């Protein structure tokens, strides 16, 4: 889905060219715009809450998420268990709080890896051109032709988990799968935005003054070509969190005893007919996180895009 998403977002983003509004740079101009946007602040607060939840879940709950009280299984929300209890008698509130970690880790690291690989290859292809460009573009085509979900499933099946695989190893595999299949869309976006920045006068001037290619890339190309990539990756972060839950549903990603929203959601589906609250809370948290990142991306895009002012 992400390749397509990127195109949609990329097309929505269009070209973000710097316009001279006084002496402000594009970034500080965007920041002034962002500060006034309530949606930006709502999403930032939401994201902060979820990141803190992922880092120190103990702040939010004292209950042990691995404590199953079987006789209270499927209990509805009440004073003792705020969100009720699931099929195994786990406290849903505690499990939802502890489940944030997997989603945030996967989202953040998958996005980081796609941006690092994609931006690097995109800059090389766009800036240097020539046979390197051709080679990178063809490799990008190959990877783009494999749907994200399908490739991810195959990857997870090729390197399966056992019951005692360490948590971080399993998370790492999901990150690796998403990074491996997600970079092409970023690389393509980066390449096109480098191609737009490259012919500008200031790049030519720097070259005429004898700046090394690395210096030109670092101080002239990258700052001016990063905006669309930042926007798309913020939105992708949300999409990856949503995609991360899918392998759990198919039984090959994170699986019990690991605690994650994906695991909670897929476990809850069997109880959907009788006790839908078991499904409601983890999916609500997951959707709120995804929503926060997408809204943040939207707000940043609007701030960077002179056309929407």
């Amino acid at each position: 889905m992400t390749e397509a998403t990127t195109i949609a977002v990329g097309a929505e983003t269009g070209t973000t060219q710097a316009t001279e509004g006084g002496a402000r740079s594009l970034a500080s101009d965007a920041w002034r715009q962002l500060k006034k946007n309530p949606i930006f602040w709502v999403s930032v607060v939401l994201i902060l809450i979820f990141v803190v939840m992922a880092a120190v879940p103990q702040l939010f709950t004292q209950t042990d998420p691995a404590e199953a009280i079987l006789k209270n299984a499927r209990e509805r929300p009440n004073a003792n268990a705020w969100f009720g209890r699931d099929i195994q008698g786990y406290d849903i509130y505690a499990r939802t709080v502890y489940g944030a970690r997997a989603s945030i880790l996967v989202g953040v690291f998958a996005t980081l890896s796609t941006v690092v690989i994609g931006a690097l290859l995109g800059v090389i292809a766009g800036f240097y051109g020539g046979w390197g460009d051709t080679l990178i573009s063809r490799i990008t085509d190959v990877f783009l032709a494999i749907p994200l979900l399908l490739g991810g499933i195959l990857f997870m099946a090729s390197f399966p988990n056992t019951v005692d695989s360490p948590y971080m190893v399993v998370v790492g595999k999901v990150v690796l799968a998403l990074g491996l299949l997600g970079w092409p869309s970023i690389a393509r976006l980066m390449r096109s935005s480098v191609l737009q920045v490259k012919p500008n006068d200031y790049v030519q001037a720097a070259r005429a003054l004898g700046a090394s290619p690395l210096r030109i890339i670092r101080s002239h190309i990258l700052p001016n070509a990063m905006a669309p990539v930042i926007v798309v990756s913020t939105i992708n972060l949300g999409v990856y969190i949503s995609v991360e839950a899918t392998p759990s549903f198919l039984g090959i990603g994170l699986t019990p005893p690991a605690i994650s929203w994906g695991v909670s959601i897929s476990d809850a589906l069997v109880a959907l007919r009788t006790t839908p609250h078991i499904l409601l809370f983890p999916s609500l948290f997951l959707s709120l996180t995804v929503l926060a990142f997408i809204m943040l991306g939207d707000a940043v895009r609007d701030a960077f895009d002179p056309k929407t002012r």
Partner: protein
Amino acid sequence: MGKYIVRRLLQMIPVILGATFLIFAMVFALPGDPTAGKCGERPCPPAYVAKFRQEHNLNDPLLVQYGKYVGKLVQGDLGTNYYGIPVKDELAKRYVTTGKLALMAVLWETLIGILAGVLAGIRKGKFIDNLVLVSTLFVISIPIFVIGATLQMFLGVRMGLFPVTVSPAATFYELLLPSFVLASASVAYIARLTRTNMVENLRADYVRTAIAKGLTRRRAVGIHTLRNSLIPVVTYIGVDVGALLGGAIVTERIFNIQGVGGFLFRSIGSRDGVAVVGTVTALVIVYLFANLIVDLLYGVLDPRISHD
């Protein structure tokens, strides 16, 4: 035009080879023994295992296996899977079902997605615009299997409006709900994309010119603006075909549809490499052709783009 198509077809070859090799390498890395469980409750006799591995070239190194596979692929032979069934026959049957599902999903996308996007775009800032923006965000943020299971529960089980599962015949009515679920996220993206482009193009000079020279608003919006706004949308739909076919794995599982997704998933589970590679190869080819068709459509939508 003809030359352009031939060039594009030739460019597809390295992509297909690359993608199949990637898949092949991943399948090659699949752990486990494909002969496990084939002889009932006991391990297979060594003679059978040896014969099986010989037949499926499992003793060769990766590149040799791949070379042998491509050699057969060029002749249109997708091989037989580890249960002796020709992959081509199985796929032909299943691609009809999944193809129907994906095609109906594309129909949902174009109908609801574009309609909602146009309505939101021409009434920017009004109630319907906000409704579309909020509801699309809502749909995008929910994982597809939650949407699927919930709709199946409420519309299928509780209200009895739609069949809960799909029979092997996969009729139009049975596929209505699954295809809608499959399309849901894309519908949302298309609505947002169409809206953005409509808003942008409505401010364009040529629309003002069209109205100034006396065209009705309906014609200026319906013909001039819409046609120009559709190019990114068509691009999106083309790329999305691949995602729809791949994403069908989840939808097919929820609604018990006998399509490619289920076949692929089961083949991965039983370490059936030939079946997996064949299925994905077919999928990649469909995806590349969908993109070619989209590129040809550009010329229809925008006369400035020509493929000569």
